[in-house]
C-alpha cells in the first residue's frame, strides 16, 4: 500500500490525497514566491563552494579551468633570468649519439659549466642504477677483448665515480623522486630543516619513499632536491616547495639549488595550526599554501632559457654565460619525453618548470590563493544569491536575466583583476555557475507561481462572469416584472372612444425609477399619474414599485381626490424611507364625460396643455415639493375644464434633461417648441411618438443617463356612446 498514512495505518481515501501542487510542504517551499526554496538551494550551493578540497569536487575542475584560463590569456612576463638550462636536446643526441650517454660525458658537462662560475648547478637527471658503459663493465658488453685489455679497463675508475667526483667538486645538487606505496625508505642525505611554529609535517604533501641516485652519486651531491611536481587532472600547476618523504622534510630541487647557491646550511619552515605558511632560505621567505606548495605563475616557453649540451661540450658556449646563474642540466629531447602539460603549454620540459619556479621565486611573482579568497567567493555567492532571491520574483524575466549577467560580469571582472594586479587566484566562475543554477530555480518557481496565479485568475473571471450572467438574468426578470406592472392603454381601455392615451417608459438601465399609472375610478372618471424617483437602477425601481402601489391604493381610498391622494401617499412613503429617497409625482383625475380635470403636482415636471385653435401651448403650473422631501406638506389640487380634443403631455426629466453627445441639455424650451407644433395632432400616440423621436435623435450617440417616461392624454369628448 503506497498510500498509507503513518499515524493510524489506514489507507488514505482519494479525497485526502491532494494534487501535488496542493501539498503543504511544497506550498511552504514555494511560499513567499519561492524564497524558502531559493534560500535552501543557496545554502546547498554555499556548502558545495566552501567544501574543503577533496570532499566534494563538483566545482574543482571548473575552478582549475578558470585559473588556467587566467594564465593562458595573460601569462607572466619574464623579468629576470636567474636560471639557465643546459638541455640534452634533440640536437645534442643528433651530434653525440643516443641517450643514455656515458656519465663521464655528464661529468665533462658539469666541469664545462663550472668553468663559467655559476651560482649553483643542479642535475635534473635521476640515475638510480650504475652506468653500464663504465670501463669495468665493457668486457661484459664486448666479446673478444684481450685479457690484458680487460685488466686495463678494470683498473680504470667507473663512469659513476668520475661523475661523482665532478659533482662533489662543484657542489652539484642532485635529484630524487617521491614514490607512493613503496617501502624503500627515505635514507640518505638531505638538508636540515628548522621548523618554526607548529609542526609542518602533517600538512605537507606526503610521499612514502624516495627514489634516489646511486649511493655513490647521491653521496657526492652538494644538495638533494625533489623532482616531483603535483599533477592535477593532467596539468602541473603547483609544486610542493617542501614535502614529506616518510618522516623527513625534503625541499624541491629548485629551492634546494637556491639554498646551495646562497650557501645557507638549513631551511626555515614556518607553520601554524592551519598549515604551512612559508619556506625560508636565509633572507628569502617564500609564502606557501597550507600544504607547503606554491602556484607557479607561468610565462610562455622561451628558447632563451636553454643552451644545448652539445654546444657546451663542443666549447661553443661562452663560459661567462653561466656566471652567477642557477644552471639546471636536464633532458629535453622529444624522444626522451620528460614533458608535462602546463596552463600555458600542452608540453613543457620538466626542467623548464623548475626554471620557471626559480624565476617566480626571484621575482616574487608566484601566484597564491590565501584562505580568505575562498571566504570572499562564498561571501560573493551569498550576497549575489540573496539579491537574486529578493529581486527575481519582482522583476520581469528580461530584467532579472540582466541582473544575473551583471552579477556574473562583476564576479569574472573581480577574479581577472585580482589575478592581473596582485597574482591572487579568485575563482569567479564557481559562484557564477552557482548563481545561474539559483537563478534558474528562482525563475522556474516564479514562472510556475505566475502560471498558477493566472489559472486562479481565469477561474475567478469565469466565476465572476457566471455571477454577472446570473445577476443579469435576475435583472432581466426584474425588468419584465417592472415593465409588466405598468398598464397598457390598449388593454385597459379597449373600445374607449372618449379619450386616447399614450404611455411610454424606458429605464436607463435594466430597471428604473420612473413610473406612470392610469386606471378608471368609475365609469366616468380616469385616474392617471406620472412620477420620478430620485434614484435609478435597483434602489430606484424598488421605491418606484412601492410608490406606484401606494399611490394606487390611496387613489382608490380617496376616490381620486388628488391632493388627498398625494398627501396619503406622502405619509405612507415617508414612514419607511431609510434611504431618504423622494419621488416627484403628478397625479390627475379626469372626468371623461365632462372634461373636468383635477391635478396635483408634487415636484414633478410641469405638464403641458397642447395648443388648440386660438390658445397657445399652456403650462399647468402649481403644486408642492416631491413626496418625502418635506415633512407634513399640505398639497393642494388645481381644477381645470378641458375642451374636447385637448391634449395633455406629461414627461419626466429624462426628457427635459436628456443630453446630446456634445453635452447639451435637451431643455424645456425645446420640448415646448416640439409640442407647440403638435396642437392639431390626431392622436395621443402621434404626440408621444413625436416627442420621443425628437428626444432620441437629440440624444443620439450620448450615453443614456436617466430613465425616460412620457404620458399623453387626449380628451376626445363626451362620446357618442354616452357611457
Amino acid at each position, binding site marked *: 500500500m503506497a498510500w498509507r498514512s503513518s499515524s493510524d495505518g489506514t489507507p488514505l481515501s482519494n479525497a485526502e490525497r491532494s494534487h501535488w501542487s496542493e501539498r503543504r510542504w511544497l506550498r511552504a517551499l514555494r511560499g513567499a514566491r519561492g524564497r524558502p526554496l531559493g534560500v535552501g538551494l543557496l545554502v546547498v550551493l554555499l556548502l558545495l563552494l566552501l567544501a574543503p578540497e577533496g570532499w566534494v569536487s563538483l566545482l574543482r575542475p571548473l575552478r582549475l579551468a578558470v585559473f588556467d584560463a587566467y594564465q593562458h590569456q595573460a601569462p607572466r612576463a619574464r623579468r629576470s633570468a636567474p636560471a639557465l638550462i643546459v638541455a640534452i636536446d634533440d640536437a645534442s643526441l643528433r651530434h653525440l649519439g643516443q641517450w643514455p650517454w656515458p656519465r663521464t660525458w655528464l661529468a665533462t658537462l658539469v666541469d664545462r659549466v663550472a668553468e663559467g662560475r655559476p651560482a649553483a648547478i643542479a642535475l635534473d637527471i635521476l640515475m638510480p642504477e650504475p652506468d653500464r658503459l663504465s670501463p669495468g663493465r665493457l668486457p661484459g658488453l664486448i666479446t673478444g677483448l684481450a685479457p690484458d685489455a680487460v685488466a686495463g679497463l678494470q683498473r680504470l675508475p667507473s663512469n659513476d665515480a668520475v661523475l661523482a667526483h665532478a659533482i662533489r667538486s662543484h657542489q652539484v645538487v642532485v635529484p630524487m623522486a617521491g614514490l607512493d606505496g613503496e617501502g624503500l625508505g627515505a635514507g640518505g642525505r638531505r638538508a636540515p630543516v628548522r621548523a618554526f611554529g607548529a609542526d609542518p609535517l602533517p600538512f605537507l604533501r606526503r610521499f612514502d619513499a624516495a627514489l634516489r641516485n646511486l649511493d655513490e652519486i647521491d653521496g657526492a651531491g652538494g644538495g638533494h632536491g625533489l623532482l616531483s611536481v603535483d599533477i592535477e587532472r593532467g596539468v602541473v600547476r603547483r609544486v610542493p616547495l617542501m614535502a614529506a618523504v616518510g618522516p623527513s622534510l625534503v625541499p624541491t630541487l629548485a629551492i634546494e639549488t637556491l639554498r646551495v647557491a646562497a650557501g645557507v646550511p638549513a631551511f626555515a619552515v614556518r607553520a601554524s595550526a592551519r598549515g604551512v605558511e612559508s619556506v625560508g632560505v636565509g633572507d628569502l621567505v617564500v609564502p606557501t599554501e597550507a600544504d607547503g606548495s606554491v602556484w607557479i605563475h607561468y610565462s610562455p616557453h622561451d628558447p632563451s632559457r636553454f643552451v644545448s649540451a652539445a654546444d657546451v661540450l663542443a666549447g661553443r658556449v661562452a663560459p661567462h654565460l653561466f656566471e652567477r646563474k642557477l644552471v639546471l642540466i636536464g633532458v629535453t629531447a622529444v624522444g626522451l619525453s620528460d614533458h608535462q602539460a602546463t596552463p600555458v603549454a600542452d608540453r613543457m620540459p620538466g626542467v623548464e618548470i623548475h626554471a620557471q619556479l626559480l624565476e617566480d621565486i626571484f621575482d616574487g611573482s608566484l601566484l597564491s590563493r590565501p584562505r580568505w579568497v575562498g571566504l570572499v567567493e562564498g561571501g560573493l555567492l551569498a550576497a549575489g544569491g540573496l539579491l537574486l532571491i529578493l529581486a527575481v520574483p519582482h522583476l520581469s524575466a528580461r530584467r532579472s536575466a540582466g541582473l544575473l549577467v551583471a552579477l556574473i560580469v562583476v564576479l569574472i571582472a573581480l577574479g581577472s583583476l585580482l589575478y592581473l594586479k596582485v597574482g591572487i587566484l579568485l575563482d569567479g566562475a564557481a559562484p557564477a555557475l552557482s548563481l545561474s543554477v539559483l537563478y534558474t530555480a528562482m525563475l522556474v518557481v516564479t514562472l510556475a507561481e505566475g502560471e498558477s496565479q493566472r489559472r486562479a485568475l481565469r477561474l475567478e473571471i469565469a466565476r465572476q462572469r457566471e455571477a454577472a450572467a446570473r445577476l443579469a438574468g435576475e435583472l432581466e426578470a426584474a425588468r419584465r416584472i417592472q415593465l409588466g406592472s405598468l398598464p397598457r392603454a390598449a388593454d385597459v381601455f379597449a373600445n374607449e372612444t372618449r379619450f386616447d392615451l399614450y404611455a411610454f417608459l424606458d429605464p436607463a438601465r435594466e430597471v428604473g425609477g420612473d413610473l406612470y399609472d392610469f386606471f378608471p375610478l368609475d365609469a366616468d372618471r380616469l385616474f392617471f399619474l406620472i412620477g420620478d424617483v*430620485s434614484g435609478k437602477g435597483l434602489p430606484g425601481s424598488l421605491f418606484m414599485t412601492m410608490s406606484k402601489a401606494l399611490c394606487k391604493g390611496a387613489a382608490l381610498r380617496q376616490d381620486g381626490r388628488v391632493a388627498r391622494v398625494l398627501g396619503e401617499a406622502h405619509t405612507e412613503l415617508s414612514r419607511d424611507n431609510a434611504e431618504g429617497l423622494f419621488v416627484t409625482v403628478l397625479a390627475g383625475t379626469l372626468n371623461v364625460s365632462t372634461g373636468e380635470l383635477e391635478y396635483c403636482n408634487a415636484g414633478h415636471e410641469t405638464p403641458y396643455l397642447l395648443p388648440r385653435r386660438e390658445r397657445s401651448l399652456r403650462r399647468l403650473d402649481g403644486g408642492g*415639493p416631491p413626496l418625502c*422631501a418635506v415633512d407634513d406638506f399640505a398639497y393642494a389640487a388645481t381644477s381645470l375644464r378641458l375642451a374636447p380634443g385637448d391634449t395633455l403631455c406629461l414627461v419626466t426629466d429624462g426628457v427635459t434633461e436628456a443630453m446630446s453627445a456634445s453635452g447639451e441639455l435637451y431643455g424645456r424650451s425645446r420640448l415646448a417648441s416640439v409640442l407647440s407644433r403638435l396642437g392639431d395632432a390626431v392622436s395621443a400616440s402621434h404626440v408621444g411618438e413625436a416627442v420621443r423621436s425628437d428626444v432620441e435623435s437629440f440624444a443620439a450617440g450620448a450615453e443614456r443617463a436617466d430613465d425616460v417616461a412620457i404620458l399623453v392624454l387626449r380628451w376626445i369628448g363626451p362620446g357618442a356612446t354616452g357611457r
Partner: protein
Amino acid sequence: MDLAHTRIAGTTVLSPAGRIDHATAEAFKAALAPHVARCAAGQDRLVLDFGAVEYISSAGLRVLMLAAKQAKVQGGILAVAALQPIVREIFEISRFTLVLNVFATLDEALAA
C-alpha cells in the same frame, strides 16, 4: 468633490462647482457631511453658494434634501444662494424652493 469654504460673519459659505449628478452626488454628500453636522442651533448658518453649479440632478437634490432635514432636526439654518438659470429652473419645477431656503444672491443670503 472639492468644497471651497469661507466664513463670513457667522456664516459658513460653501462653494460647490460643476455638475452635481449621479456621478458626483456621493462625493458632494461626503464633502458636505462635516459642515452639515456642525449646522445646528447656536452655530454658524450654512449657505451653499451655487454660483458655479451648472446642473443638479435628482440625485443631487436628494443630497440637499437630506442635508436640509438634518439641519432642521439640529435646529440649524441651511440656505442655497445664487442659482444659475438652469439650476434655478430645476429648483422651481421640483419645488425645492419649498425644501430649502433659496436666495437670489449670496449677499441676500448673508443679509437674511
